[in-house]
């Protein structure tokens, strides 16, 4: 028996998908949006409270992105609300800088604090609010 779908591909190309192409304007719009997000790659573009909240959330156990995003909202840290993608961008930058590490468990990526991250978190807690040393400043020394 003939498969009714055997010439579906050519039929669809000629009918429903005819002239349906992703235009250069659309591609450029994607590129522009990506460039905009890149400015958020730098740690110092984030608020210090946000950075501390992320580090704190990871201090006791490894978490994957989704759990972390829920926890941050519960902590009233709303920088990532409806912009969960930015959380992954931040985690990625932190990973690149050796502040957090990650492991894959059942197709999910779990993040935990690396030694450097623990150090900063401790430092940020120890410093009194009065003479508060900028955590960002400490983080920025991460590379030295």
């Amino acid at each position, binding site marked *: 028996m003939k498969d009714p*779908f055997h010439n579906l591909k050519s039929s*669809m190309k000629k009918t429903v998908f005819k002239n349906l192409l992703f235009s250069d304007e659309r591609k450029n719009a994607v590129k522009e949006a990506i460039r905009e997000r890149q400015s958020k790659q730098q740690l110092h573009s984030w608020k210090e409270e946000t950075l501390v909240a992320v580090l704190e959330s990871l201090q006791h156990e490894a978490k994957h992105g989704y759990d972390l995003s829920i926890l941050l909202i519960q902590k009233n840290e709303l920088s990532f609300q409806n912009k969960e993608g930015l959380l992954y961008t931040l985690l990625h930058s932190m990973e690149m800088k050796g502040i957090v590490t990650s492991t894959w468990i059942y197709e999910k990526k779990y993040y935990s604090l690396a030694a450097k991250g623990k150090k900063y978190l401790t430092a940020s807690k120890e410093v009194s609010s009065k003479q508060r040393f900028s955590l960002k*400043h400490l983080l920025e020394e991460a590379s030295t």
Partner: protein
Amino acid sequence: MHELEQWPVADEIIADREQIIDQLMNEYSDRILHLAFTYVRNRATAEDLTQEIFIKCYEKLAQFNQQASIKTWLYRIASNHCKDYLKSWHYRKVTLNEKILDYIPSKSKHVEEEIIAKSEKHSLSNAVMGLPIKYREIVFLHYYEELTLVEISKITTVNINTIKTRLKRAKELLKNKMIEEV
């Protein structure tokens, strides 16, 4: 200036990610657009969704597990994104109301137009586009994208036996449809 402010390594990674998305767009954007159209059946919406899908990929790229194929990963993000759209408040409330208006027969419709519409109904692709989503997506992925059942299973998270059943059922539905209209 702090050393962290000019991260040569990070910059390289950023440029890399941009390049990867560029390559993915060149290679797959038309196909992803067709996939999106298969779900939403509206050109402008499919274009918007495709744009969002590539931005989402950029954001999720750090999470991409190297063990998986990037194509499967991209299709999975695309498929989920389109399904989320169909479940969204905007689609259900706004778009469906507009659709209902489409179903109200208009007397002003040209005779010629009606004849074209009728002959289009007989075409195989339009029949496929009229299938319920769970069949439509699998028919598209298998017969248009020519993906294997294993790949389709990874993209849709539907198990292989269910995919087989759906393909079979889709054929039956289609046959009935074609007979009905002749």
